[in-house]
């Protein structure tokens, strides 16, 4: 047990080994991680939407969502784009190498409140990673939920993540998957949509009636998605998103992830659109 003079040291990570690595796109990978200490594995219990701190010793730590559902808890999975110092270092590791992992942190998606309701998951780019855990969760408890629509987009066909899983999800009864790429991002044989996510969403013409819309993606996509949702009559409390502030400690101590009064690492990362609207424009 990591400790400071006998007290639990929340900064000291557990050790995990890369059990498998799957290339999603040229710069995005999904890793399966297994704890070296079985007791640490038992203690690491998470809910869909929570995040963790992943680290390479000598390089640093990075915050990423736990990308798999606790209903599939054989491993902890993370999907990461090699874009910063730490994510590039993680991406350069091979199967069998050891990482630091601590968490889980933050709140989670209110999956219990979604029972019986129709769900729409809207994910842009690497934002799709934050939707994978709740999606797997509701698919594993399929009978508890209504119809499921997944709208996923990326800059180009090559940048789409979870390609194999999307096909599996599509095959489940009552699940529909719509994929789109930005204009110019299509490849030969592409049979999905072409267009930006907010306009494809509008074109789908969904009625708000009780649906829950879960939206994750870059800030500019969220901005236009909220405009589209408003135009279509969705209310701010039926829309859920995650906010991706820069974080260091994950514990509400280091002082950098706040948006107004709200510390994203503690009160987030999951917020309703209604909550987002009550926060200052600081994200």
């Amino acid at each position, binding site marked *: 047990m990591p400790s400071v003079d006998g007290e639990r*040291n929340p900064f*000291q990570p557990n050790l995990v080994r890369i059990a498998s690595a799957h290339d999603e796109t040229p710069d995005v990978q999904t890793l399966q991680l297994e704890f070296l200490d079985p007791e640490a594995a038992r203690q690491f219990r998470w809910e869909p939407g929570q995040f963790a701190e992943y680290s390479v010793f000598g390089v*640093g730590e990075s915050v990423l969502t736990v990308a798999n559902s606790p209903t599939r808890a054989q491993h902890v999975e993370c999907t990461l784009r090699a874009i910063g110092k730490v994510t590039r270092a993680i991406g350069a590791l091979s199967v069998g190498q*050891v990482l630091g992992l601590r968490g889980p942190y933050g709140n989670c998606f209110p999956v219990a409140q979604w029972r019986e309701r129709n769900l729409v998951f809207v994910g842009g780019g690497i934002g799709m990673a934050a939707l994978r855990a709740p999606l797997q969760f509701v698919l594993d408890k399929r009978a508890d939920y209504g119809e499921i629509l997944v709208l996923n987009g990326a800059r180009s066909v090559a940048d789409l993540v979870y390609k194999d899983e999307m096909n599996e999800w599509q095959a489940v009864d009552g699940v529909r998957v719509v994929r789109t790429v930005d204009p110019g991002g299509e490849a030969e044989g592409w049979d999905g949509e072409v267009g930006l996510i907010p306009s494809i969403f509008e074109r789908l013409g969904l009625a708000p009636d009780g649906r829950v819309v879960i939206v994750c993606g870059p800030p500019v996509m969220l901005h236009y998605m909220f405009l589209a949702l408003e135009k279509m009559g969705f209310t701010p409390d039926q829309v859920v998103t995650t906010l991706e502030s820069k974080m*260091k400690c994950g514990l509400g*101590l*280091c*002082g950098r992830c706040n948006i107004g*009064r709200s510390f994203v690492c503690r009160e987030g990362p999951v917020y309703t659109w209604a909550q987002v609207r009550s926060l200052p424009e600081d*994200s």
Partner: protein
Amino acid sequence: MTGWRLAGPDLTRWLEDLLRAGTRVIAPVEEDGRRVFKAVDAAARVCLLPGKTRWSPKEFVFPKTEALFSYVVQAGGVRLHAASVDPTEQVLFGVRPCDAAGLARLDATFLGGETDPLYARRRELTTVVSLVCAEAEPECFCTAVGGSPAGEDGSDLQLLPLDGGWLVRPLTPKGERLAAPLSGWAANASDEEWEQARASVRRVEESIRHSAVAQEWAALLESSFDSPVWEALGRRCLGCSICTYVCPSCSCFDVNDSGTVECGERCRSWDSCTFALFTRQASGHNPRPTQASRYRQRVLHKFAYFPQQHEGRFMCVGCGRCVKMCPVGMDVQEAVRMAVAASRGSGDAER
């Protein structure tokens, strides 16, 4: 009130006894023309003259950089070693009441929610002896933010200046333990002496001419978020962060690895919300892209967000170091008043 009266040689005796017992005594000393907190090896080094140190003593419970744990990566695997805190008991001696109040703010941050074990251990080993002010300095504004030249917040024991000596007043069990040896040989303080000390405090309080920052302003400040007043203030701020480094209550930190991929330490270091990199994400997106947005964060954290989460207490203790040290003469109180005035829709900042 009960306590003891110490003449100069008595204070020396008390300090020398503490040093002999192996206690680390950290006190203001004059060094290269600056007053700074340092571990002392002799009572004669301690400077208890009016005025405050250049830096607050917060680094003795929240070091500028400290290891959280160390790591060794070898072919056989990764080994992590927990950080440990030097178990020597320490006395922060001669801390101004504003700086002691700063420690109480750090307590709220590091012990109020998730307990920070390194901070908690250091704090446990620390006894704070505050030194009531005999004079205010031009930048002082403790009375405007709920403090006093004789404030007790964060202090275990008070030292009150008196003509030719000091009164010693324990405030907590830790303070009583520290003062316990005095009962064997020091004189009890008389009612006249307590009154003399109180009169001195009143004089100092009256000399601090700053009107109060009202707790009710927190909500007004929050609603000043989109006011152009922050643009005007942000244009002046250089983003040098000296305000943060000298602040007794600023607690933000960075976490970084120091060493190689074979061995090293994961460390935390003081950081500042006024730096552009503080919130910049790996994608390049920065939620606080301008100095205005960063300066606003600093002021609102101290005077709006923190008070609303900590019973109305400001995350500012009025030491005035940020005002004194700012290279472009920015005044945090003035910024607060400007933002409140803007929020109320009146053009003039009330002074």
